[in-house]
């Protein structure tokens, strides 16, 4: 599980797991994302890099359903899908870890892991009784499986360290793993120190398994090159290039980010 799996390219029907075609989105006069095509293969880690305002986060939010595109198409396994709300994307097996982590500081670890999908019995839906004991048991098992060190699932998330919070967010995202599971991560290590960041990177490597594909935004290019199979470079809302993480270099990435064209490599 720890060794880097090679992307096996095509799924059962030959199409990539997730495809974006001609995605556009503007905010007022600003073209946040413009005519972007992306393919995400099964079991792949795709890094997305780019300067501030390059459209990385907007692109991810479009996949997660919290921002709707002005035009363009999203396909899963070659079939067009409709993602207009966060509920839609969750139903399709897409989980997003936001930069702000979207954790509830006032709730305990177990409640954060299960939020929105709590096991209940008795009455239906909102009035159902929470199976708190089961939530704690399963959350503890999940943390153990992922090698996450947190004292108790009863701790409120607000008292955890930055790295622990990040890991709770990751645990929540992979807790309900299904086929064709896609994990979107926005700057998972931005707010972390070196040690914590290394632990989180280790965790990301660990969780990549059968059927889990990851898209990851990061400013730390060496880290992305280390983790990802392919790296996609964005500039001013456009998809500039996609590079093979093993054959490219930090310099090449930086040049693409700054100049937006591979020709710049020679001048540098």
């Amino acid at each position, binding site marked *: 599980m720890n060794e880097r799996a090679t992307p096996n390219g095509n799924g059962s029907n030959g199409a990539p797991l997730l495809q974006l075609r001609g995605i556009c989105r503007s905010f007022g006069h600003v073209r946040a994302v413009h005519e972007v095509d992306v393919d995400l293969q099964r079991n792949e880690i795709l890094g997305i890099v780019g300067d501030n305002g390059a459209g990385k986060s907007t692109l991810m939010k479009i996949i997660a359903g*919290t921002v709707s595109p002005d035009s363009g198409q999203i396909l899963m396994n070659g079939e067009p899908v409709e993602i207009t*709300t*966060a*509920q839609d994307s*969750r139903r399709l097996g897409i989980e*997003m870890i*936001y930069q*702000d*982590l*979207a*954790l*509830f*500081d*006032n*709730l305990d670890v177990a*409640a954060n892991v299960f*939020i*929105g999908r*709590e096991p*209940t019995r008795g*009455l239906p*839906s*909102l*009035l*159902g*009784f*929470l199976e708190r004991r089961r939530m704690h048991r399963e959350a503890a098992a999940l943390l153990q499986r992922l090698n996450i060190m947190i004292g108790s699932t009863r701790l409120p998330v607000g*008292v955890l*360290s930055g790295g622990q919070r990040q890991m709770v967010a990751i645990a*929540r995202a992979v807790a309900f793993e299904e086929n064709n599971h896609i994990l979107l991560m926005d700057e998972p290590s931005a707010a972390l120190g070196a040690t914590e960041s290394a632990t989180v990177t280790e965790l990301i490597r660990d969780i990549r398994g059968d059927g889990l594909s990851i898209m990851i935004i990061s400013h730390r290019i060496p880290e992305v090159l280390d983790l990802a199979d392919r790296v996609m470079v964005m500039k001013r809302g456009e998809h500039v290039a996609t590079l093979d993480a093993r054959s490219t270099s930090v310099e090449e990435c930086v040049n693409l980010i700054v100049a937006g064209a591979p020709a710049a490599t020679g001048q540098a």
Partner: protein
Amino acid sequence: MTAVVPEDPPTETSVWSQRLRDLVFSGKLTWVTLGAVIVAEFVVFSIAAPRFLSTTNLLNTGRATAVLMIVATGATFGLISGALDISGASVMALSGTIGTQIVIAGYPASLAILAAIASGFGAGLVNGFVVVKLRVNPLVATLGMLGIAYGLAFVVDGGAGIAGNLRQTTDAAYGVMKNDLVGIPLPLVFAVLFAAAGWVLLAKTRFGLYTYAVGGNASAGRSVALPVDRLRMMYLVFSGACAATGGWVLSSTLGGSGAASVPGTLILTVITAVILGGVGLMGGTGTMGGTILGVIVLGVLENGMTLAGWPTFYQYVVEGLLLLLAVGLEAVRTGGYR
């Protein structure tokens, strides 16, 4: 972060100060403080007014506090979800007035009660709509509703309450809350059941958990696909419905009420009880247990001060000081308002 390792060998004082600090920071302080306050109230009032400890008086206190408990249950959900609903007292007035007028007009009491409580649903729906759709801060939205519901209540009873010629009703079913159940005042029984149901709802169900989630971090709620707006709406409707239920119980106890029957300061007492009980103003924290203790503190205070011969208005001062004390302790714990 909470693991504080004492550097010195634990001497007598450091153990105690450590314990005190743990207590302050554990959040259980609210409970301990309130418990101590209630005990102190019992001691002081039983000395100041010998009649205080009689069964009759304690049951009377329960009867008088029932309405506060019912309205505070709704306010607890509202405030934990991040919405301070200050329209409660006027929704109570509206509910009681509507119920009274319908039963006076000769319709069955069941219809009157239903309409009374439905008025709270309506007020809550409007509050929810204003907050969720018009994006108005709940404090402002419910301040507006405070005026609107009060005005509507006056329209419904034609100002009869102010003029002092409000007609009472002798309808036994509508006035059911005047009765006792095996010697215990019915409003007290009802309030206890109501608070227990509120406790189960808040602590045990998904509805309750989401109250904390929405109040703690609404934007995270949206990110994890909780229907935040619909939930906010529900908590405001619940709050309105509780206020309306309280309004009916009051009206039923009085044998009919009008717009002027509910003192405007009642909602402040409700908020004081809820905040005394440890519900944070910013949402996301608090328990029903705390609210129940907060209600008992204020209910006993009111009864005891009256019995001891202190004019009602001294209660305002004590209530205000209690509120400051409670929030001051909370501010010590959390670092307070910046």
